[in-house]
């Protein structure tokens, strides 16, 4: 069900990096955008707030804003325009309702 979406066609001779998606460790390549790093491993980036379906980005040029993912610190990252870095920890599920709480 959650198989990788994007298919690498070339440029695979790059150094490997590791990230976590929803706690699971996955591999990607240096120079990948976060979107490619994630969709090279899973089929979606997030859930639509109002439609319920999973979303996997749309425009890849920073215009649609459909590819924002949360990291484990609660920061939001636009996946298509952010370079993936080793050690990033992302989640594809929404935060809990306690997100604004300091304690």
């Amino acid at each position, binding site marked *: 069900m959650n198989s990788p979406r994007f298919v690498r066609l070339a440029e695979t001779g790059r150094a490997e990096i590791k990230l976590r998606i929803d706690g699971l460790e996955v591999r990607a390549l240096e120079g990948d955008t976060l979107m490619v790093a994630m969709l090279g491993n899973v089929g979606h980036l997030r859930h639509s*707030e109002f439609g319920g379906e999973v979303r996997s980005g749309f425009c890849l040029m920073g215009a649609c804003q459909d590819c924002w993912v949360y990291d484990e610190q609660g920061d*939001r990252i636009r996946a298509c325009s952010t370079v993936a870095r080793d050690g990033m920890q992302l989640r594809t599920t929404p935060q809990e309702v306690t997100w604004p709480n*300091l304690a």
Partner: protein
Amino acid sequence: MTKPPIAADVVIVGGGLMGASAAFFLRRRGKSVVLLERGLVGQQASGVNFGNVRRQGRYLPQLPLAHRSRDIWGRLPQLIGEDAEFIPTGHVRVVYTEAHLAAVAKYAADAKGWGLDLEILGGDAVRKRFPFFGPEVVGGSYAPVDGHANPRLAAPAFGRAAKRSGAQVIENCEVIDIQKEGTDFRVTAKDGTVAKAPAALLCSGAWGGAMSAAFGEPVPIQPNGPTMAVTEPVPYGIIPVVGVSSPIAHEVVYFRQIKRGNIVFGGGRRNPAYLDERRAQVTPQFTLAQLHELRRVAPALSKLHVLRTWSGVEGYVADDIPIMGPSAKVSGLYYAFGFCGHGFQLGPGVGDVMAELIATGSTTTPIDPFHIRRFAAAPARTGAALA
């Protein structure tokens, strides 16, 4: 081009929340109504404000009107068939200094006598109840049944309800002349529409000053544009409406999260607004200043993004008190305008009170502090073309 005049018991000029709700409540009292609105119902201040349905913090003599209005907010579905997204989430006003906490506590003590029950919370208590508050917050005042609604929906909803109940609501109809001729008011619009009624209610918001001046009752009123913004939707975790109370104007920011998850915020500095433009622009620096203040009061907000900013034209009377009630000089003439950026919560109550006043000659809700006579100076006039 002349059209046959539309005759009614009451002609209302201005289709914001005040005019639309007055039209609705007048119909409930069996009065025939024609409402003329220059643009679309609810497009100006009524549609761009923050959406606070708040009683605490008001000038105390305004509380009876605010109570009456709050009661109507709670009964909107029964009255007009929709709720305009009103939810009684509670409203919490927080402060940054002990001195101001004392001021807010004094307000709470005084407000009790006016029928408003507030809970004062110290720093630890307010953070325990609402764990999103930052360390600078030293306390607050909580109003459990105040709340918020959607200003884009409220006035149009009243307008539709008024129409369904038989009011004539004419949009895209710019009033250019109001005259009293004998016992009737004759209101003429640019497109040739003419309305005649023995009673006229002027609800033209920031533009009301020109109309009252036409009847010899000028008031000191200025247009101003609020600095508003909204974030992306996030999980619904901030329930009450939040406002900062402070003697330092730029610290006074407020925010509310809607059920869909977006957070609407406003406050701080206001933008210039021009009556002839009918629209105001946000000064980008004012938005950035708001972000600074919002991060102080609720640090987790720094993770969000602003999707959209907007402003609009609100009317501010020099003494920060609205113009509401009968004319001091012309019989049959009534006013409800200039609500100084705090009229949204009052809107349904204003409409109900003005309907009662116009239909019966008096109202059980004290509104004398808002009487236009407080600015009386010039001699009476019978009206004029509007400059």
